């Protein structure tokens, strides 16, 4: 991933030129793969191949550029990720395979993130520092504090990235993150991301929040930059994320980044998961790529059909894979397993 970044012409004033055609095409392919995967997951939820669906269609234009810029690896020299459940774009851009998300959707025992235990898009990839995604709202803004403290103690320029939605910023954990990240005693290298899709389930953000922009919170904390960007524009997102990451690596202090995006299939399967009429970041991006002569209609079609094929094949494979065995519930209660006297009968 970082190899691609090096091909950019950063001195160019045109952001598209500054990223270069190779990276733009790579971002496009990942965004399409992300969309096709999410659509497959929605179909599975509606078709009974799995249960609840929640994910990030509409956030590809922000998630993919973020995932491409993570310093990927395990331990304090690499970046930590404390993600929320709309982060499939970040995971795919880091190299996660669509088939594994499909496995989690189907609750297959081959689900590498939770062995059939958690909702879809709840990643956990220790070898890339992707910490367990939790269905709880906003707790990731508290846990990110810890990995950032560890990185600060360790030295180097690794950082911790946290993502969540706009509605969750009303929770205390968001405030905890702002306070702890900016303690004069020990400022922390955290990229605090809020993806503002304008809704918490059915409740419009604008009815519940008077702070104008979420990035306005940065104004209250000395030395923390805050910025609001159009998260539906992958190029603007890429550049803003790059700027924020560079700032954090250099200063070892935090940065608050708000990305405004669409939410193309509503909150989750609980609200039907049907397509809504909002800006589609992929459509906008494709129009720009065509206008600039970087991709032709046929090229775009091929990307879609290739991604479709990959997800279809993955789905067909996963359908053959087993579900967990009942006794699997005892795995992972304690690291060393449960001892023979642990109550296991469920009553008398």
């Amino acid at each position: 991933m970082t190899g691609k970044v090096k091909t950019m012409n950063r001195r160019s004033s045109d952001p598209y030129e500054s990223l270069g055609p190779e990276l733009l095409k790579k971002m496009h392919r990942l965004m399409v793969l992300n969309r096709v995967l999410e659509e497959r997951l929605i179909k599975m939820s509606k078709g009974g191949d799995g249960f609840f669906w929640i994910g990030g269609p509409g956030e590809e234009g922000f998630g993919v550029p973020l995932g491409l810029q993570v310093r990927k690896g395990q331990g304090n020299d690499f970046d930590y990720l404390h993600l929320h459940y709309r982060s499939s774009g970040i995971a795919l851009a880091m190299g996660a395979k669509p088939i594994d998300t499909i496995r989690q959707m189907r609750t297959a025992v081959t689900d590498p993130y939770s062995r059939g235990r958690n909702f879809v898009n709840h990643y956990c990839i220790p070898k890339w520092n992707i910490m367990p995604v939790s269905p709880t709202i906003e707790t990731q803004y508290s846990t990110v504090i810890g990995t950032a403290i560890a990185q600060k103690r360790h030295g180097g320029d690794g950082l911790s990235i946290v993502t969540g939605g706009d509605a969750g910023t009303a929770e205390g954990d968001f405030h905890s993150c702002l306070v702890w990240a900016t303690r004069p005693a020990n400022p922390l290298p955290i990229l605090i991301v809020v993806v503002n899709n304008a809704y918490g389930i059915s409740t419009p953000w604008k009815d519940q929040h008077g702070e104008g922009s979420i990035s306005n919170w940065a104004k209250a904390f000395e030395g923390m930059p805050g910025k609001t960007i159009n998260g539906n524009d992958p190029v603007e997102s890429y550049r803003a994320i790059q700027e924020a990451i560079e700032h954090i690596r250099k200063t070892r202090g935090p940065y608050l980044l708000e990305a405004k995006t669409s939410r193309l299939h509503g909150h989750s399967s609980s609200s039907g998961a049907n397509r809504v009429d909002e800006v589609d970041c992929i459509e906008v991006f494709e129009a720009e790529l065509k206008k600039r002569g970087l991709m032709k209609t046929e090229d775009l079609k091929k990307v879609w059909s290739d991604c479709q094929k990959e997800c279809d094949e993955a789905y067909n494979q996963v359908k053959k894979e087993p579900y967990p065995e009942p006794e699997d519930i005892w795995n992972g209660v304690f690291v060393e397993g449960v001892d023979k006297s642990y109550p296991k009968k469920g009553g008398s």
Partner: protein
Amino acid sequence: MANMAQAIRMALHYGEENLGVQEIFGEDVGPPLGGVFTATQGLKRAWNSPLDERGIVGAAIGLGWAGSRPVAEIQFVDYIFNTIDLLKLAGNSLWCSGGLMPCPVVFMTPTGSGIHGSIYHSHSFDSIASKIHGMKVVCPSTALDAYGLMIAAIKDDNPVLYLKPKALLRAKGRDLIPGEPEDEKALKKMIDAPIGDRSKWKPNWPKLEEVEIPIGKAKIAREGRDATLITHGRLAPISLQVAEELKKESKGDIEVIDLRSLIPYDWEAITKSIRKTGRVIFVNEETEISNFAEHLLRRVVDEMFYELAVRPKLLCGKAVPGIGLSPVLENHSVPQKKDIRMAIESLLSEQA
């Protein structure tokens, strides 16, 4: 002899020197105070956090995931209630990730009544803690156990909630911690921060040795033949005292089991003792209704019904919303020495 607060402090020092503990933190945990009960005075890794329990627990989880072996303090267990979903996250991190992500963290917090702490400094949390599956729960009643359990908790790869009975934190132990000077005044001079300006003070730590009290192992605090009393924490030394008095008065020979670990608990020690005595009483200061010992009682009835000579008993706190400041109210809410004595006498008096 070290008191319990000093014992915990020494274990934490041992942990930061030898067991990879990189962060010890919480409200007023760092200098100048070193903890409201002085359990973190003089530790080089101890620092003050914002007054934010959710931030403390969340930070500890992140540090655990990053392998920093953190010890985080909640100043009083009464303040832990707003962190329950984060504690659940610590407890379920391994399970939810299908075994990928352990969360080795120690949360320590003073618990229980006995210091006229009124409504928000007298709570117990044992029973709720025992419902956060995946998390271990320990509670020492002596200084040496406090030392050895802290070392075990630090070394454990699971999250451990370490409950410190606040009324015992200044109680002196009977057994020396290996490396501790015999003269308690000498120890105090070495590791207690002076009154007044502490900015230049540094502790002079004794050369400590590792003691590990295995998590999950109870202690037979007193052997006996006539009945089994199962307890932990603050009520353990009181129960022991009552047992000694009854023996002296030839009224009964009580076996006292100090659980030390609530999760996982030592079922083998419990069953072995009950098999011997046929009579059992559970004693703790948590409130009735889903009291942790009610689970143990149910299991005793289920699995040992025909080995019981008489009905098993529970003596615990009254199921009221708080513990009142007036000693009259506190003493009527939480089992006192006389209540323990009466309950044991009643257990012994029932015709088999």
